[in-house]
């Protein structure tokens, strides 16, 4: 993709090329997965630094597929951002590469590498609309805050290395070394660094400005694939490696979760712009995904898969609808139900899914993460009830869009025509969400054990 930028002149060709490459990647991933399902033991690569089991490969497959859907839905808008379309796509492929590293790392250095490969393209993409001050501001803000959190991440890794004597997470053994202050401080630094990257409160402050300022098509990928990939890294490290000593960090993470849910949901209520609301809602949704990390069990890993996909598809879909409109405020949606019934219907399904209403993938996403936490015993019940109250609040801001679309009169201005292919791909996204809401087993069948 990177080299294509040198030779290809036509913008449309890039989108086509990206579509083809992503389809090939999905195919390769499924081929790999079929080998593992047949019982082949996955090999470790690079001296055991990377290892892909069924969970990792299945996650890669899904994320590549989500990225494919993203290119299909948002490709036209990516072409419109600026002149350097080839570069944009190359950066998106870099992000995907980082995501693939994060799902299979076995070594803290690879973790660091993966997170940086994901982050640096984001700093550029956020600022790609150079004439827009808000976009530059987003980029700078993200870069400064991001490098700060990178420092914390490195510090955490260094402390863990100091106490364990290795970067290899499979060789971490907390039974032999009694848990000491150094490793605990390392874990705490990692919680903060990961919390920053997934925009968990109180490390969320960059999120609304960056998501709001960045060009909308790039916000869509930052809020979905990136977030899901970092969550998988977070989950893998904390469940596989630190799971045994979860008593030491569980309370901190529970409080972070509750705070994230609270701040994300309450602040989203007061937003005037749908784009900004989606930024806060992504904080709130991160709160639910944190549930899987808090739970540290097998249901949690299922939860994180379903949540990643359901949330990503719905969010990308919602951004795709948003990009069709000129006015990003709630009033910009007024009367959309009459003017563009299909667009409004698709948005309805995406919003219902984000709100976690049954028959959509969002319901099972929430169901699995809640079940995962409840399996840890009645001690976590407070967190579950709190999360459900917050979910009820989330209905308020999601339904505000529905109300504007269907029950208010208006003539929304479209920024772009809704073409037949848009309808087709939105239709596919809607179908995916409903299929996930009826038969979540389809997503889990590929997970071994």
């Amino acid at each position, binding site marked *: 993709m990177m080299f294509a930028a040198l030779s290809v002149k036509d913008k449309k060709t890039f989108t086509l090329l990206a579509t083809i490459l992503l389809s090939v990647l999905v195919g390769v991933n499924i081929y790999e997965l079929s080998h593992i399902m047949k019982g082949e033991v996955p090999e470790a690569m690079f001296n055991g630094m990377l290892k892909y089991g069924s969970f990792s490969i299945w996650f890669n497959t899904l994320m590549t597929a989500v990225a494919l859907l993203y290119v299909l839905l948002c490709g036209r808008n990516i072409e419109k951002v600026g002149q350097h379309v080839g570069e944009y796509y190359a950066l998106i492929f870099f992000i995907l590469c980082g995501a693939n590293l994060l799902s299979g790392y076995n070594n803290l250095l690879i973790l660091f590498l993966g997170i940086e490969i994901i982050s640096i393209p984001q700093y550029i993409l956020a600022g790609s609309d150079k004439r827009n001050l808000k976009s530059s501001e987003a980029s700078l803000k993200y870069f400064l805050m991001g490098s700060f959190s990178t420092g914390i991440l490195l510090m955490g890794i260094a402390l863990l290395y100091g106490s364990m004597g290795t970067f290899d997470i499979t060789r971490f053994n907390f039974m032999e070394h009694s848990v000491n202050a150094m490793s605990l401080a390392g874990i705490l630094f990692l919680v903060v660094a990961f919390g920053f990257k997934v925009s968990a409160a109180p490390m969320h402050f960059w999120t609304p400005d960056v998501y709001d300022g960045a060009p909308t098509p790039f916000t869509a990928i930052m809020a979905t694939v990136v977030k899901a990939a970092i969550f998988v890294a977070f989950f893998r490290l904390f469940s596989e490696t630190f799971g045994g000593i979860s008593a030491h960090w569980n309370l901190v993470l529970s409080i972070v979760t509750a705070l994230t849910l609270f701040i994300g949901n309450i602040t989203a209520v007061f937003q005037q712009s749908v784009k900004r609301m989606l930024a806060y809602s992504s904080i709130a949704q991160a709160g639910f995904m944190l549930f899987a990390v808090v739970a540290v069990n097998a249901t949690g890993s299922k939860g994180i898969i379903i949540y990643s996909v359901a949330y990503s598809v719905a969010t990308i879909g919602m951004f795709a609808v948003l990009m069709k409109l000129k006015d990003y405020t709630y009033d910009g949606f007024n009367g959309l139900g009459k003017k563009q019934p299909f667009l409004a219907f698709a948005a309805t399904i995406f919003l219902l899914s984000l709100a976690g209403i*049954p028959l959509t993938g969002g319901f099972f996403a929430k169901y699995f993460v809640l*079940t995962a936490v409840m399996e840890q015993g009645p001690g976590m019940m407070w967190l579950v009830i709190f999360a459900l*109250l917050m979910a009820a609040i989330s209905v*308020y801001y999601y*339904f505000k869009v529905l109300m504007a679309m269907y029950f208010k009169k208006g003539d929304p201005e479209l920024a772009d025509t809704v073409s037949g292919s848009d309808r087709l791909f939105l239709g596919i996204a809607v179908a995916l969400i409903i299929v996930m809401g009826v038969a*979540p*087993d389809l997503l889990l069948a590929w997970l071994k054990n």
Partner: protein
Amino acid sequence: MILLSLILIPFAAGIISFLWKNDSVKGWALAASLLTLGIAAFACMVNTSNSLMFNANWISSLGARINLLGNGMSMMLVLLTAIVFPVIFITQWNKPQTEIHRFTGLMLLSQAGLMGVFLANDLLLFYFFWELALIPVYFLCSTWGGEKRIPVTFKFFVYTFLGSLLMLAGIIYLYLQTPGRTFDWETIKQTGASLPAMEQQVLFCLFFIAFGIKMPVFPFHTWQPDTYEQSSTPVTIVLSALMVKMGLFATVKWLVNVLPGGTAYWTNTVMVLSVTGIIYASLIAMVQSDMKRLIAYSSIAHIGLMSLGIFANDPNGIAMNGLMVQMFNHGINITGMWLIVAMVEQRYGTRNLRELGGMAGSAPTMAIAMVIIAFANIALPLTNGFVGEFMLFHGIFQSSNPHHITFMVLAGLGVILGAVYTLNMVQKVAYGEAKTSVVVKDVSRNEMLGLIIIIGLIILLGVYPKLLFGIIG
């Protein structure tokens, strides 16, 4: 298969309605609902020994199954649902309606949801249908209705959704305790009953808030009068005749049976709430001047009596049988009430009792129908309302609860007050001097058909209630 078709037919018909572009969608909806009615009636006839069931694989990794069971109470409510929808479509036939295809589509989807709630024998499936019934009604209430419909409906939605979420926490908790992880009713029932008392008490709260909001039981009722008032009549009928039954039905099937320990602990609290609701709603109904609000409050009072019946716990189970009969009859009566209100509003342009009067002079048939339905609403003998209320009181009288006489007397007071406000309304609307010079037309042919069905059922079941006991089994 029969049970599955009861859900699938309205569901498929609803989806097709959305795509239908002209007015003939009315005929389509009516045909679909009549087909459903036919199947429901057939199902009630063959279901003599609770034999109807359907069981298929759904989400095997969770142990959730598509498990449907038709027992006496569910078949009764299925039949009620199947009757009410065609009546709505018949009486709505001539009414001007915007976006008719969306209206019928949403109506049929909510019918599918209701059928599912009454038939589901799997807790997760039940939860799905519980929500499926709510979403279309949210859109129905918000699109067609009074001026304040949007905020009012939203309040209703947030209320019930919050309840559902609390129930979801309860569902997951119960599910995690079951041996082998299943949502099957039998297993859930055994698991729930074997839980320690403390856990049952907490779970009871989680479930009861969801069901209590739906019924609605005092003090969770505040959404109800506003929503009934603001939504259009067909939707009000769905809400008050059918959706409140979801709450009552679920309380019996998924709460009292599943958590006996929790039920025993909370019985007195719930009974006090129910009685408070009866008296409180009756008193407020007496001073209402808006017909819709008056009937809304009267409905709260009736529901209060029924929820009293659920928790009466009498040795012979008369209250429970009475509850089932009354659920059916209340559905029929209140449908009739709303039909009359809609006709009055359409003709006079107002529902305010102070501006109405003398309807019997210009529209005698309508007045007669109103009187009969009002009699049924206050449970006069020979109407269907009498049978259910009599059995409920009989059951409460025999209840093993130490305070049963107090509850009964207070609930009886509610019945007397019910007569006061209902007859007052009849008198003000049908008799007295006409307040307007508008000449109103008497019932049209399709309205007549709807009323005949309702009044026919009122008298038939009042005189020969054995038909209903046949379905209960």
